[in-house]
C-alpha cells in the first residue's frame, strides 16, 4: 500500500511532465539565422528583378507570412539553391514564366513525384506534364506563404478550391477537347448561389476528395454536371423530364440543352429581372427564330424599348416543360397563351389594345370548334382536325402590329391565309370575319341591324305570347 504522500508525489510529477512536454511557443517563430539575414533586405519593398523581356518581379517576402508558413523553419537556400550566405549570384532569365518554372522545380527535391502522385489531382497534373503541359506547384500552393494543405488552412471551401481553380487549369478529354477549369471568383460572388460551397454542387469533391473522372468529351461533362441541380431543384428537374429537350437528350442528342446551358454554371443569375437574357439564352441554339422574333412587334418592344410586358420565349413555350410546338396539343393551347396578356386589361390597356380579341375569337366559329375539339380530346381522346388559332392569322415569332401595316395589305395577307384552309376563298373572304370587333352600325351595319331587330322582336314576341296565354287562361277560369 502506498501512503497518501506518495500519491501526491506521483500526481505532481505527472503534472510537471505534462508542462515540460508542451512547448512554450509555437514552433513557427523560429526563423533560421540565414532567413533573418536575407529578410533584412528582402522584407522591404523596392527590390525589383527585371527580366530580359522587361517583365518585372518584386523580390519582396512578407516575413510574417513566411514565418507562419509550413516552410517557416527552412533556410532560404534550401529552396533558392543558388544562394547561400554571402553567395548572391546575378542570374538572367528570359521571362517571369521561365523564372517561375525554374524556381518551382525545386519543390520536387523534397516532394518526390511518387509521393505526391498519391493524390489524384496531382497524378492527373503530372500525367499532363508528359504531354508538355507544365503545372507549377507554386501556382496552387504559393511560394513563401506556403501552408500545409488541411481544413484549417482556408476560411472556406471556396478558398480551398480556388487555390488551384483560380489559376489557369485545364481539363483534357479523350475527344481532344480542352476545358478551362479556371473559375472567376467575381462571377461566383455575383451568382445566386454565392452562399453555396463548391461541393454542394460538385458532389463527391471535398477538401479530402478529388475523384478522377473520365469523360469522352466536354459535352458529357456538362450533362453529367447538370444532374447535380436536381438535388435542390427537383420540381424543375421533373418538369424538364416532360420537355422536348429531355426527349431529344434521351434519344441520344447530346446537343439538347441541360440546366447549365440556359442558366449557366458558376454565374447563375435570377432571370426574372432581365427578360432579354432569356431570349438571348434560347438564341444560342434557335438563332433563326430569334432573328425573326427580334423583328416582331414583341421582340422590337423588348429590345428597343426594354418593354418588360412583352412575351419572351418562355412565356409561350414555358421554361422547363417545353413541349413540341408542332403537336395538336400545343396548338390548341395557343389561344390560352395569347389571352394571358391579350385578355388581361392591366397588361394591354396601356397600349390601346382591346381585350375583346380573345372573346370574339372564342365565340366565333373557329373558337367554338377549337374548344370542342380540345374538350373532346381531353375527355374522349377523340382525334381532331387543325383549326385556325391566333397564330394562323397573326403569325408566331413574326407577329407584327396590324396598325403599322396598311389595311389593304393586311386584307391581302389574310385572304392568302384563309385560302390555306378555305381553298377557293375569294379576295373578299376575310370580310366574313369581323376582325375581332363587336359589330357596330359603322363597321358591320348588316350584322348590327339584324342583331338589333331580334333584340327587340324576340322579347316582344315572348311577352306577347305569354300575355295571350295568361289572358286565355284567365278568361277560361272566369267563364267556369
Amino acid at each position, binding site marked *: 500500500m502506498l501512503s497518501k504522500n506518495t500519491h501526491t508525489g506521483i500526481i505532481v510529477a505527472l503534472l510537471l511532465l505534462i508542462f515540460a512536454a508542451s512547448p512554450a511557443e509555437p514552433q513557427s517563430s523560429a526563423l533560421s539565422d540565414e532567413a533573418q539575414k536575407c529578410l533584412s533586405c528582402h522584407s522591404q519593398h523596392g527590390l525589383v528583378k527585371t527580366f530580359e523581356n522587361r517583365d518585372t518581379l518584386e523580390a519582396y517576402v512578407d516575413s510574417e507570412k513566411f514565418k507562419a508558413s509550413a516552410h517557416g523553419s527552412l533556410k532560404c537556400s534550401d529552396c533558392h539553391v543558388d544562394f547561400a550566405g554571402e553567395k548572391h549570384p546575378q542570374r538572367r532569365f528570359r521571362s517571369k514564366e521561365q523564372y517561375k518554372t525554374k524556381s518551382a522545380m525545386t519543390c520536387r527535391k523534397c516532394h518526390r513525384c511518387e509521393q505526391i502522385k498519391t493524390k489524384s489531382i496531382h497524378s492527373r497534373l503530372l500525367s499532363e506534364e508528359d504531354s508538355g503541359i507544365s503545372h507549377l506547384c507554386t501556382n496552387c500552393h504559393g511560394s513563401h506563404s506556403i501552408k500545409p494543405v488541411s481544413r484549417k488552412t482556408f476560411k472556406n471551401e471556396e478558398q480551398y478550391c480556388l487555390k488551384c481553380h483560380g489559376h489557369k487549369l485545364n481539363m483534357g478529354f479523350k475527344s481532344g477537347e480542352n476545358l478551362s477549369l479556371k473559375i472567376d471568383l467575381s462571377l461566383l460572388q455575383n451568382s445566386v448561389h454565392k452562399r453555396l460551397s463548391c461541393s454542394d454542387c460538385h458532389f463527391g469533391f471535398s477538401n479530402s476528395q478529388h475523384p478522377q473522372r473520365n469523360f469522352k468529351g466536354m459535352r458529357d461533362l456538362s450533362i453529367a454536371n447538370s444532374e447535380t441541380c436536381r438535388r435542390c431543384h427537383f420540381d424543375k428537374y421533373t418538369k424538364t423530364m416532360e420537355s422536348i429537350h429531355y426527349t431529344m437528350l434521351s434519344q441520344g442528342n447530346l446537343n439538347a440543352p441541360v440546366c447549365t446551358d440556359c442558366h449557366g454554371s458558376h454565374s447563375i443569375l435570377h432571370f426574372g429581372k432581365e427578360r432579354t437574357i432569356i431570349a438571348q439564352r434560347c438564341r444560342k441554339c434557335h438563332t433563326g427564330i430569334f432573328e425573326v422574333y427580334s423583328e416582331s412587334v414583341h421582340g422590337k418592344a423588348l429590345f428597343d424599348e426594354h418593354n418588360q410586358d412583352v412575351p419572351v420565349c418562355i412565356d409561350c413555350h414555358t421554361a422547363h416543360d417545353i413541349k413540341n410546338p408542332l403537336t395538336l396539343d400545343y396548338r390548341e393551347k395557343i389561344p390560352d397563351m395569347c389571352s394571358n396578356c391579350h385578355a388581361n386589361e392591366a397588361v394591354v390597356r396601356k397600349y390601346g389594345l382591346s381585350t375583346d380579341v380573345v372573346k370574339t375569337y372564342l365565340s366565333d366559329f373557329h373558337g367554338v370548334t377549337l374548344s370542342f375539339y380540345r374538350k373532346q380530346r381531353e375527355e374522349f381522346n377523340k382525334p381532331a382536325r387543325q383549326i385556325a388559332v391566333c397564330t394562323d392569322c397573326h403569325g408566331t415569332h413574326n407577329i407584327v402590329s396590324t396598325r403599322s401595316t396598311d389595311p389593304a395589305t393586311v386584307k391581302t395577307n389574310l385572304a392568302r391565309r384563309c385560302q390555306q384552309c378555305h381553298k377557293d376563298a375569294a379576295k373578299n373572304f376575310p370580310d366574313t370575319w369581323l376582325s375581332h370587333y363587336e359589330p357596330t352600325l359603322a363597321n358591320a351595319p348588316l350584322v348590327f341591324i339584324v342583331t338589333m331587330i331580334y333584340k327587340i322582336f324576340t322579347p316582344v314576341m315572348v311577352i306577347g305570347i305569354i300575355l295571350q296565354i295568361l289572358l286565355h*287562361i284567365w278568361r277560361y277560369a272566369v267563364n267556369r
Partner: protein
Amino acid sequence: MADHKIKRFSTYRIAEHWVHMAIFIVLVVTGLSQKFYYLDISLWLIFHLGGIDYVRLIHRYTGIIFLIAISMHVITGIAGIAFRRWKPTMVINKKDFIDAVYNIKYYLGMEDHPAICDRYSYRQKFEYWGVLIGSIIMVFSGLILWFPVFVTRFLPGEVIPAAKVLHTNQALLIFVIIALWHIYNSIFSPEIFPIDKSIFTGSISRDRMLREHPVELARMEGRPIDEMQ
C-alpha cells in the same frame, strides 16, 4: 250529334306533321346545343352525339331534309290552290286582324263570346306564317353558313356574320313560338288538355268545331252562321 267526328286533316297532312315534328326536334337539339355551346347540357348532348363534327353533320343534313319538306309543303300548297283542290284558307285577310282585336276584347270581358273563326283561327294563321317564313329564313341562312366560300364569291363578306346572327336569332324565335305558343295551344290549353289529337287522328269533334271553327262548320252543314249550335 255531340260526339260526332268531323274529318279535318288528310293522311298527307298527318304524315307531314310527323315529319316536320321529327325534323324540328333534331334541328333544335343539334342546333341549340351549338348556340348555347357553353352550357353543360350542350356539352353533354354534343359529346353523346359523337362530337361537334357529327352534330354539325346531322344538323346540316337534317337541314337538307327540312329544305325538301318545306319546298314540298309550299309547292303542294300552291298547287292545291291552283288546281282548286282546296281553298286558300291559310291566307291572312282583314277579318283576322278584326278577330284578333275582338278576341282580346273578349278575354278582357268587353265582348261576350270569342271571335267567330273559319277553318283556321287568326292565332293559327299567324303561327303558321311566322313559322313558315322563319323556316325559309333558317334554310337560306343555314345554306349561306354551310357554303361561305361559295356565297362570298357573289355577295359581300359581311353576309356571312349577318347570316349567322340571323340563323341563330331566328332559331331561338321559332323555338320560342313552338315551345310556348304551339305547345300551349295543342297541349296545355285548358280547352283541349291533355292533348289536341286532331293532327294525329285527322278528325275533330263537332263540339270543338262549333267552338273553334263555327264558320267552317256552318259551311259544311249548309246552315247560316247565326243558327249554329
